[in-house]
């Protein structure tokens, strides 16, 4: 039964290739001369990106099962497999990771002044570990990747970070490590309760007693909520973001946070459907609090990076909101929003990094009048800022809209409160833009403000392209998700507890003309 639902792509082991290439790059970087380390690492990450493209082009959108599957026995007792595969949920996230890593190397090209080699090695190890989390189909393998990434991230923050980096690094490390404790125990319990296997697909098909589900749900929650981070487990995030070097912030915001929401989507929902439904109100409440609280905190920040860090808390609240709406729109919106947040927030952190490299200040008050001094830069910044706000035509709009549609079907009040977050986002982002782009320039900084060089220009352009591509024509990306998301939703309807009826609002139907692709999932939901 399990064999039939995985679609193997014969021949080339693409996923292994994507996993191993960065490690080969690590070897090459290690052996190379210091001056060659940057080109080698960049080449490696670009090759990895190219090697990951077949995942997109050869992807079969007709099936919700795992594709590009590889499975080899790794350890006999207990049977642990080196099992890899992607579906429509994990594939976009893998691509996001391989896409962002070269940009992270580019953004660090001159910003990192010491120990370049070690920096690049950490970055590449990080890439392997995060991709490994997305593609692992064995729970132990998943956990190994999940934990492995802590070490390079710890070093990225602790060695190359800001003045308070040591504190931020250990805080990040201990928070996430503590969160994972219960995850490991849950994995072990699942092994014995789910038929003596660590196979994620097999464990998903097994059913568990509701009381056990409740315990496992909270064990998963501990690990994933810290990673997302959900309110009230978010306190490590502002510290880590502010202290991390730019590339570290980008990886952290764009990829690392997605691991938590991916965990909810891959494990909590399909494996523990009853508990997920039971505890949805709690998750929804926490998500709404995160959205509003994050936005509110962002309003009060005087440090640009901290502002964006809190905005991440707010945006990730939308993702968890969409996931636990339990319908196709909500979950597709959530996955799309994971990608969008990766692009937009990653880009915003890069923008902050660029300005920090020039003025060595992240204070809003010390960075003003960029529109005159750095017109190109200001244009990019405004585009990403508007994307973050969720302006129609840009990527975040589609994701947030779908999430809100999904949540509206679940509960109107929740959707209304969440929509408040979008308004607050407009307030803090536009206020930020007003002050640093259009405000008066600080005289002492003026001489340092040189506009983008070709490297910086080049690394921001692909991000802008994605912002508009997803914003204007999200269909290809949504098509990839349909089948897999349908499968998650189906696992949900198996649940004993009846899910709330899906409500279709007139308003939604009107809006769906704006984005035709949003209609597709709606049609699925139309016939209960």
């Amino acid at each position, binding site marked *: 039964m399990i064999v039939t639902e995985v679609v193997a792509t014969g021949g080339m082991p693409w996923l292994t290739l994507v996993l191993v290439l960065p490690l080969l790059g690590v070897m090459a970087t290690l052996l190379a001369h210091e001056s060659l380390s940057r080109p080698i690492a960049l080449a490696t990450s670009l090759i990895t990106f190219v090697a990951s493209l077949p995942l997109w082009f050869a992807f079969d959108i007709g099936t919700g099962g795992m594709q590009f599957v590889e499975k080899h026995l790794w350890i*006999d007792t207990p049977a642990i497999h080196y099992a890899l595969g992607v579906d429509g949920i994990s594939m976009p996230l893998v691509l996001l990771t391989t896409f962002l890593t070269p940009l992270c190397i580019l953004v660090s090209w001159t910003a990192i002044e010491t120990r370049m080699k070690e920096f690049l090695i950490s970055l590449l190890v990080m890439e392997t570990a995060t991709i490994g989390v997305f593609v692992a189909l064995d729970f132990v393998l998943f956990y190994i990747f999940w934990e*492995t990434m802590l*070490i390079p991230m710890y070093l990225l923050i602790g060695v190359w970070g800001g003045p308070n980096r040591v504190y931020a*690094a250990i805080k990040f490390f201990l928070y996430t*490590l503590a969160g994972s*404790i219960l995850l490991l125990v849950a994995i072990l319990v699942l092994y014995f309760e789910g038929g003596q296997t660590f196979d994620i697909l097999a464990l998903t098909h097994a059913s568990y007693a509701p009381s056990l589900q409740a315990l496992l749900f909270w064990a998963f929650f501990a690990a994933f909520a810290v990673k997302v981070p959900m309110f009230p487990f978010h306190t490590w995030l502002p510290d880590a973001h502010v202290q991390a070097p730019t590339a570290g912030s980008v990886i952290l915001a764009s990829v690392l946070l997605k691991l938590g929401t991916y965990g909810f989507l891959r494990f909590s929902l399909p494996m523990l459907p009853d508990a997920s439904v039971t505890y949805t109100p709690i998750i929804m409440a926490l998500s709404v609090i995160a959205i509003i609280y994050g936005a509110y905190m962002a309003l009060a920040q005087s440090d640009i990076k901290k502002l964006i860090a809190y905005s991440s808390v707010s945006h990730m609240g939308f993702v968890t909101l969409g996931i636990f709406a339990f319908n196709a729109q909500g979950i597709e919106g959530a996955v799309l929003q994971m990608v969008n947040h990766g692009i937009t927030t990653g880009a915003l952190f890069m923008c902050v990094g660029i300005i920090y490299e020039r003025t060595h200040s992240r204070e809003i008050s010390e960075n003003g009048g960029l529109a005159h001094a750095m017109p190109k830069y200001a244009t990019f910044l405004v585009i990403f800022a508007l994307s973050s706000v969720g302006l129609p035509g840009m990527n975040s709009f589609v994701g947030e809209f779908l999430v809100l549609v999904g949540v509206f079907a679940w509960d109107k009040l929740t959707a209304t409160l969440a929509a408040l977050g979008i308004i607050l986002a407009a307030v803090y982002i536009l206020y930020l833009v007003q002050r640093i782009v259009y405000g008066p320039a600080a005289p002492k900084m003026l001489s340092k403000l040189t506009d983008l060089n070709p490297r910086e220009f080049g690394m921001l352009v692909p991000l802008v392209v994605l912002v508009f591509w997803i914003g204007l024509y999200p269909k290809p990306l949504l098509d990839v998700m349909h089948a897999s998301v349908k499968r998650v939703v189906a696992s949900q309807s198996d649940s004993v507890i009846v899910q709330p009826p899906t409500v279709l609002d007139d308003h939604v139907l009107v809006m769906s003309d704006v984005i035709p692709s949003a209609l597709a999932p709606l049609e699925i939901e139309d016939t209960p």
Partner: protein
Amino acid sequence: MSLPLGDLVTILPELLIVGIACLILVLDPIMSTGKKDVLAWISLGVLGVCALITVGDFGDRTMAFSGLVVVDAYAAFWKMLLYVVSGLTILLSMSYLKEEKIELAEYYAFVLLALVGMMVMVSGADLLTIYLGIELMSITLYIMAGFKRFEARSIEASAKYFVLGAFSSGILLYGISLLFGVTGSTRLTEIAAAVNGPTLNDPLMLLALMLIIVGFGFKVAAVPFHMWTPDVYEGAPTSVTAFMAVASKAASFAAFLRVLLEAFGGMRPNWNLLILAVCLFTVALGNLVAIVQTNVKRMLAYSSIAHAGYALVGVVVAGWVGTEAAVSSRGVSSLMLYLAIYSFMTLGAFAMVAMLRKGGLEGEEIEDFTGLAKRHKGGAFLMLVFMVSLAGIPPTAGFIGKFYLFMAAVNAGLAWLAIFGLIFAAISAFYYLRIVMVMYMREPSPEQERNTRLVLSPQVSVVLAFAVAGVVLLGIFPGPLVSIADLSVLPLSSVK
């Protein structure tokens, strides 16, 4: 009664090593001072030969000397581990003794004699045999702890170790004598028969059991019998500390488990809660006190106490009432796996401490590691690997060890114990990472930059390479070692 010559074959490795140890003591005075290394190489050679002999023991269970000695896969597993550990200790010592200027050839003889003691412990099928092994090991270690004879700290360590060690041996012996009084025998099998017979509820039997647990508790450094550990580990020469922390702990655990399962298997309800309590306290105290240490050797001493606590999880599972034999043997095999992995990472860490020199002294303060990543990239990275592994973070072997241990615990229905252990593993990450932090994230003062350096002789490089290979390879391909441990668990028939 004539000496059963046939039985001598079963203890051939022990005889060989004793012979070589005596030979070294004889050769030492007549060899010129510059050539003492030859004696170390001879010691390594004999370990290699013994390893080849012991490989053949992974098979049937043979009793020898009318039931005093047993040779089985369980003993063979531990002996192989002890050979590796002793070999690495000798290699490390070759450079370390030179740096410390205490290069005396007796040292290698002592390592070998202590090794024989440990081998007798793991092969003992009679409480007296085991006791003899313990004494041979301990007395040799008392001397080795004081090997820096001109340094007060080392002598103090030796004296402390001797007093407390002798005390604990006395307790153990008292337990054994009580047991002999009740059951009329010191053979493990005969005690087991008596335990299952009418003497089970004899209060003296319980007292004897408790005294024996206390005696072994001292040897494995479990709380509350751990008090000697930090001072002795700190004062003893670092190569000796490494040897004590790894080899003597492994051998003590091996004998402890054999006694508990083979002799007292029928009294599991009487001892498993006691062991559980000791386990909880050991894990908690070891990890918490390690946080406040500023001396690396003391920190590693407390860390070794904590790891003894984790290993006790295996004992708890092995003796948990109501578990099937298969689950119980998982406890045993996970303990064996854990201690094997622990040996590599701890030896590696101590080798780094031994070779970090500050002027003519050891750099044993955590401060001395400051900025090491700038001057010795490779060395700092190795230390990072050892620390990460000790904290139990994948993809290192330390994670695999904890994974199997806690999997056994969950299997026995002790999920809460796994949670408890993992919480403290997360706490331990704090102090292990502090070393990573000072190495990578602090700038060394000019003085530190001038004074501290890493002495990497070829021998030490081999030790570090072995240790790091063990930590990394066992982390990625633990399969073979897991299978060997599974095959080497105590014969199940004796566990009731």
